[in-house]
């Protein structure tokens, strides 16, 4: 019976219009430049080099988180604990800094804590077959709780040299930007040139087919979470360093900013589609919009509305341009 039914989908498919494909590849870049032009016209300060540098620096942490979310979303998973794990990792790193005075120990702690939480997420998901949504939500609460207990609710100050990780410069370029670029390039390399990267795309595209191709999917999923956790931990250290203190409450909601950046940048919630440069552009688009709205002194309520519309728009375009999948 199905033979004749599926026959209707045959023939002529190779000549499908590629405009959807083109948008996915280049659409975001067009939007990116459109926003730059519009913003420059709206406000003369927008194109000031210092302002542009600010934008990138302010969003470096989000961009790093967005790299983490990108590899997760592409593989069909998600991480709702990133914000709280970021806070936990950052605060613990600050604590280590205050107690030992060693920047490298602090960095190591932050990254390791992030990786551990990530790996735990992966473990819950693969060993107990929990949905990523649920597992990371639970982790979020646990991480938040530990952070509150550890810091007693107040900031950890006196981190001295650690602040250079977030406020230092390499020549004319702020260090956080360098770190961000490094992570972006690393993520790009992994996703494009390693078999691990191919598996990330494949699992998100069709997990069953990937299993049937002999890939050890569970082990790969744990690795994905571990890697994203390491990024989150690093982001935590950078953020606290920039703020010059370990703030237990700054993580709230950051994962959603990261997810927004990824989705605006073309990562699809269906999995299997997305790339880190798009995510970077997405993060910058969101950052530029925040910036121009502040420069124009648009009141906060309107800023929220505009950002909400932006996310909705990005998701709608995402659905419209996704390719055929029965």
């Amino acid at each position, binding site marked *: 019976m199905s033979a004749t039914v599926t026959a209707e989908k045959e023939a002529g498919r190779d000549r499908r219009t590629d405009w959807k494909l083109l948008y996915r590849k280049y659409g975001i870049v067009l939007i990116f430049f459109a926003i730059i032009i519009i913003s420059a016209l709206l406000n003369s300060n927008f194109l000031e080099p210092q302002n542009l540098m600010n934008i990138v620096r302010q969003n470096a942490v989000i961009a790093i988180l967005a790299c983490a979310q990108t590899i997760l979303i592409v593989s069909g998973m998600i991480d709702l604990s990133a914000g709280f794990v970021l806070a936990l990792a950052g605060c613990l790193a600050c604590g280590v800094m205050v107690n030992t005075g060693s920047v490298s120990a602090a960095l190591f702690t932050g990254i390791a804590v992030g990786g551990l939480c990530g790996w735990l997420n992966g473990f819950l998901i693969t060993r107990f077959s929990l949905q990523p949504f649920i597992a990371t939500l639970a982790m979020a609460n646990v991480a938040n709780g530990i952070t509150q207990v550890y810091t007693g609710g107040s900031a950890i100050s006196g981190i001295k040299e650690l602040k250079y990780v977030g406020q230092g410069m390499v020549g004319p370029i702020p260090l956080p930007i360098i770190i961000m670029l490094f992570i972006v390039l690393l993520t790009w390399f992994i996703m494009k040139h390693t078999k691990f990267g191919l598996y990330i795309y494949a699992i998100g595209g069709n997990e069953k*087919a990937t299993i*049937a191709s002999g890939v050890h999917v569970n082990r790969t999923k744990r690795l994905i979470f571990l890697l994203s956790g390491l990024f989150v931990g690093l982001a935590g250290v950078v953020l606290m360093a920039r703020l010059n203190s370990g703030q237990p409450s700054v993580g709230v909601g950051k994962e959603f900013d990261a997810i927004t950046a990824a989705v605006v940048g073309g990562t699809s919630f269906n999995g299997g589609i997305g790339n880190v440069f798009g995510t970077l552009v997405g993060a910058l688009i969101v950052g530029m919009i925040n910036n121009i709205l502040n420069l124009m002194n648009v009141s906060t309520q309107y800023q929220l509305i505009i950002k909400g519309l932006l996310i909705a728009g990005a998701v709608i375009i995402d659905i419209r341009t996704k390719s055929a999948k029965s």
Partner: protein
Amino acid sequence: MRTRESRDILLAMEGITKSFSGVKVLDGVSLQLKKGSVHALVGENGAGKSTLMKILTGMYDDYQGTITLEGKPIRFPDERAALNAGISIVAQELTPIPDLTIAENIFIGREPTTRFKGIISRKKLYEQTRELINKLGLAYDPHTKMRELSVAETQMVEIIKAISRDSRLIVMDEPTSALTEAETHYLFGQIEQLRDQGIAIVFISHKFDEIFRICDEVTVLRDGKFIGSQPIGELDQDKIVTMMVGRQISDIYPPLLPPGDPVVFEANGLTRAGEFKDVSFRIRKGEIVGVSGIMGAGRTEVARAIFGLDRLDAGEIKLAGEKLKIRTPRDAIRKGIAMVSEDRKQLGLVLVRSIKDNIALPNMDRFARGWVIKRGKLREEAKQISAKLSVKASSLDIEAGNLSGGNQQKVVLAKWLVRSLKLLILDEPTRGIDVGAKTEIYRLIRDLASEGLPILMISSELPEVIGMSHRVLVMAEGRIQGELPREQATQENIMQLIVAAAKEH
């Protein structure tokens, strides 16, 4: 001129022709349905039965030909129109809404309302449902939730639903596929009642004993063409089989080379509870063993178990004399076993990724050094294998989902053929593929066999199995019912074996 005969005819379909993207799926098909009769619609998979029924029930409205209802020509623009005209279908896949009650399911979308439109009158809803149930001599409580019903009862509710629409014609598609003997008996009682009430019923089934038990007339389709329509009294099973089959085995099937001598693959006593039992067979070097049977016979399940997607409860597998312990597809692939699944979109391909990515996926041991992918090598070999298989695509970076069915299947084959295989399992290798691409794939399979690869080919298309196998295994009800060497593998013989098994149940 209206004869007494023609006054009895409720609905007539004449010269129905339909194509999908240039492929003719129905070619001048006719069907005449009398009031108060049970009319069997028979044909192999792909003969056009479901397409014809979809036209009848309003799902397709672009076709050539005419439909007349009570003598008046009519065309249904959509399913609602057909329903309103009194034509319902009880589909093969039952889809009740489990948490709503019987009454709610029956009247969904047309609930009786109170004085105020928009408010459902629960009183009327349950009263009317009770009436309908009683009319059929049943005793269901209309307040029962659908999830509490057995399959047979669910089916009955679907039938009640069809009747409640004052249907004059009810299409039943494989209605007994999920029923036990007792439930079938009960269902037939109801069908007889409906017939006595003057309702016309179209009965689609593969089971000959049922056809002979309950049907008055039989229409046979083959390859989208109308072959014949006769009262049941004038037919017997052999005659029907001949009408269903009888295709010229033309040269779409390339000549096979004789297989080698040594037995390469052995399966002994394979069993998986509820799916198949005691399956044993051997495949020699370069031999193509076809596995025939109707859907649900357990063939795909056997393939999945050999490939490691499912666990075997009992039995052993030997490849080149070595006993294999296969728990996951990884194990199977490592030993040189590959499977082209029956549903390439589910198990075969990652549709959103490129052809190249798909070819690479199971072959990272070839294409990656450590973690890093050797892009050059991948590109080269992907190009080579795609050319060898004549994959028609402008570039290997196109998404697999954008390819035609035939080309998709070739990509699935390509990803396995990059490896050196010891056994290839094909499950419905040409499903959903047009004739031209089919021939190519047959040639490929033949070439692989002639190079010495043992092949297990599962197929529901009799001509394909017969044309392409050195030997044919016939499976039904989870067991191997028989084995036929090439000379004896005729369509009649195979059908006999299948039918014989069904009879025993």
